[in-house]
């Protein structure tokens, strides 16, 4: 299994959710985070000076998927989250060793 961590613009969350639903992915966990990208945030012009605003609110969506579903989930997120502008965010993929459903205690392993 993989953990897909997608850091996206908050206003794209709804469309990401919808995009994932369309490919049958429902389970996810969502975090409100502050992000700073490689551009160091956004520079505002102010009275001749410039103020750098880093720490921009983002949403992070975590999805655990089977290895086989990884690529289609990434594609769906990109399709739903992309605006083409700076700050669109990142997706990171981490390996997951196992997963347990608390309600039933059932253990899921994949690969």
């Amino acid at each position, binding site marked *: 299994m993989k953990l897909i961590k997608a850091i996206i613009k908050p*206003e*794209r*969350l709804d469309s990401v959710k919808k995009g994932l639903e369309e490919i049958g992915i429902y389970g996810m966990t969502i975090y409100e985070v502050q992000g700073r990208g490689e551009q160091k945030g*956004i520079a*505002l012009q102010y009275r001749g000076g410039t103020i750098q605003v880093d720490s*921009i609110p983002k949403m992070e969506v975590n999805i655990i998927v089977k290895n086989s579903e990884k690529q289609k989930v990434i594609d769906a997120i990109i399709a739903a989250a992309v605006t083409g502008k700076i700050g669109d965010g990142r997706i990171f993929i981490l390996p997951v060793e196992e997963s347990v459903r608390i309600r039933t205690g059932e253990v899921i392993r994949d690969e």
Partner: protein
Amino acid sequence: MVLDTGTTAWILTSTCLVMLMTPGVGLFYGGLVRRKNVINMIALAFLAYAIVSMQWVICGYSLAFGTDISGFIGGTEYLGLTGVGMDGEGIPDILFAAFQLVFAGLTLAILTSGVAERMKLASFVVFGLIWTTLVYDVLAHWAWGGGWAAQLGALDFAGGTVVHISSGFGALAIALVIGKRAGFKEINMAPHNIPMTLLGAGLLWFGWFGFNAGSALAADGIASSALMVTNTAAAAGALSWLLASSIHGKPSAVGMVSGAIAGLVAITPAAGFVDVWASLIIGIVAGLLCYRCLLWRLTKGLDESLDAWAIHGMGGLWGAIATGIFCSPLITGGNYSGLIYGNVNQFLINAGDAIVVVIYAFVVTYAIAKVINMVMGLRVCEDEEYLGLDIAAHGERV
């Protein structure tokens, strides 16, 4: 007539109550915007109040209440409050000026609905000063300062035209000029803090008693009756909107208090003229009507963001017309009567007055906004809007 301490006490109190409505509007609106704009939204209310406070003592009061010039505007004799003294009839003249000041400040604060989450602070200051001078002061003169509407006998007890139609249609006009918020109708712009909005609504309801019952300019039976009908219309509006919204979806808490405000707006011009049954009808209709107007503007894709138009504009229009319908000779000591008492005239005058005010407020606001937009720009840049005005305009954050 000499000063009356009881009346003076009540108008002093009413002035305080109406003053509190401005932060009330700020909180009401602040809860409805996205988190990144909440400080700015509340700050706009304070800013509106502060600049109008200056404008009013310098020239606004005189333009509204100075000697009538052609039925259109007041003269300049009270510039700088010259000659506005501590004596007066019933209440000191300077108290009357203060009581009127808090209305003017509030009106501009209501109008910020139309530019929520996207207006430049400096442009707002310029706009606010010009708007108050060219729109508010003029309308106040028409209705209360001896202008043509007053001469014709149009009735506006506490500001249905002056405060609500002006700010509501003004908000619509400036919203059209400034344009929609980025992502409007695409992204989620749900209220970020509904308890804050409910608190604001509570302060508004509270303050409105000063607004309407204070407009009696006396601590008497009219003031008392105005208070009772004000409360009744508010409650009726709250319940009718709640019911309507619960048929559409869920009974929304924001809807309930929006309905209360719709009721309060609609009863405003009528408060000293109608009985409790009329207020019940006025409130119920206001809740339903303003709710429909809100839905309509949404389907039309109009981003008059916080619904000053639907609630204040349309509620005020309905109230002005309703005053012509329900105005009761029993309440007014036989001085006035409305359509249901057989007086078509009052109805026509009030409706006509309201329509003229709608047009004047909309057109003049539109023109002012257009000009300022050309000269200095109304709108923050894209990045600033994206980051939110709290950080972009104030360098502050929740």
